[in-house]
């Protein structure tokens, strides 16, 4: 059987395991979607100040962008770090085709999670929050390209994390900061110009911009940098991140497992238990 097919089956099996573990499933869904629904009910139908666009519509675009971003750059590195810690990566490394199958599998798991969460956010937004229907084709390509931009990158980050516990701590703060400055919750033009430049270096800003272009009327362009949706630029930047990640991830993953062995695994386990 070929790598792609085994990988898809592996990713799907991992998904079923998460679904069986109700607590994990609930945490995952209640996390983003729950917060989103609460905010919608609380302040979703008020218009954004000085416009006729509802808060709910603005928030939907923001939450979609953040869902993709945090799945790729938070959940995935933590999964990889955990898989390395418990020896799953080592097991796959000693099997033929193991590492490519693993990467495909994790990609599939993540894609399923992102799809389900995005569908829920959109569904809740349209049904509960009276969010105006977006330009669907734009939503589709931005989410797809945005996923490609962060998944390989997240895999690379996951390889660099020393342990699953510290991964959460190391990644949490920068991710929050990035979310605040990237214009997915607060319009980016209220930030100082330096911060705007930093935000534009990361894929989150561009995902947010692409999604806003799908949801918001052109009358909202006043709040955007350069007063334009810049779709070509969005595609180019997200594509660039995707390419960089795809080139980097396999190299880092191989390096992370090359220095791995049974006794090193056992040592780390002992150290973790003692700590």
């Amino acid at each position, binding site marked *: 059987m070929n790598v792609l097919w085994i990988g898809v089956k592996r990713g799907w099996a991992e998904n079923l395991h998460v679904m069986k*573990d109700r607590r994990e499933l609930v945490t995952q869904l209640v996390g983003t979607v729950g917060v989103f629904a609460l905010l919608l009910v609380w302040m979703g139908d008020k218009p954004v100040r000085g416009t006729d666009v509802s808060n709910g519509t603005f928030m939907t675009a923001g939450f979609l962008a953040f869902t993709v971003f945090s799945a790729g750059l938070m959940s995935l590195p933590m999964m990889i770090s955990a898989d390395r810690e418990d020896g799953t990566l080592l*097991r796959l490394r000693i099997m033929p085709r193991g590492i490519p199958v693993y990467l495909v599998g994790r990609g599939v798991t993540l894609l399923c999670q992102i799809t389900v969460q995005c569908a829920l956010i959109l569904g809740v937004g349209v049904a509960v929050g009276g969010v105006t229907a977006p330009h669907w084709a734009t939503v589709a390509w931005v989410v797809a390209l945005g996923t490609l931009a962060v998944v390989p990158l997240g895999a690379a980050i996951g390889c660099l994390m020393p342990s699953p516990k510290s991964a959460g701590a190391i990644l949490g703060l920068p991710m929050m900061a990035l979310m605040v400055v990237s214009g997915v919750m607060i319009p980016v033009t209220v930030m100082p110009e330096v911060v705007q430049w930093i935000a534009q270096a990361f894929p989150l800003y561009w995902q947010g911009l692409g999604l806003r272009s799908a949801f918001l009327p052109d009358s909202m362009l006043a709040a955007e940098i350069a007063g334009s949706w810049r779709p070509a630029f969005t595609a180019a930047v997200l594509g660039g991140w995707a390419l960089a990640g795809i080139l980097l991830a396999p190299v880092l993953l191989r390096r992370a497992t090359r220095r791995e062995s*049974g*006794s090193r695994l056992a040592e780390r386990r002992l150290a973790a238990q003692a700590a």
Partner: protein
Amino acid sequence: MSTAIEVRGLRMSYGAADVLRGIDLDIPRGEVFALLGPNGAGKTTTIEILEGFRGRSAGEVQVLGVDPERGGDAWRARLGMVLQTWHDHRRWQVRELVAHLGSYYDDPRDPDELLAALGLTEQAAQRVGLLSGGQRRRLDVALGIVGRPDLLFLDEPTTGFDPEARQEFHRLIEKLAADEGMTVLLTTHDLVEAERLAGRIAILVDGRIAMHGAPADLARAVQAQSRVRWVEDGEERARATDDPSALAWELHRRFDGPVPGLEVRRPSLEESYLDLVGRAA
């Protein structure tokens, strides 16, 4: 080619500590070979170098005709590895995992037959993370042989087994070696296990092969001195000797008849082994 593993002058040091100080091994195809030694002797280090997990400081190593540092997927597909501890894939079910990992190989074993052979049929639908220590170990062996390897590495396979599970495990390894001609390299600190399973044993002490050969040869070679005791002038006497029957004969002549309290004790192979390990340490 009839050699599975060929090692010449293998050395390994961690910083200033020399863990392996020049090891030679020749393991022919189809043999069950035991690397026997006390804790810290360097067994895991040796086996992980052969598996390709670790680099080495010096020496030549060929495993199935390939240097493990350069082994690719095709080479790895011919090996089965059971490491000293595994904790992976805890959320998977037993049969699901065996079938899934089997699908990476071109000609995997049938998962149900494999589980039956390892006595895991009842656990087929159980989560891997909930298996007992012995069951987990048997699953690891199942995963080690699911791809029909030519060469199987087992690092301390029966640690934590109860006597019954150990018996069953020994039968399984014997069967695999006999029926399929699989080459097996196992490490153990248990002489009885090595004696039972292995066609040949190498005793690793302090980073060197102190001795190697078939169990019977080994028994003769490591044989420690026998102890002869008797009573003379109302006092208990004892002497250690390599030739207890000569001493007994001499005593018979001296007493010109039965020797009071005569007792000859030959040390068991295990005592001899402990003696050898103790002398080297």
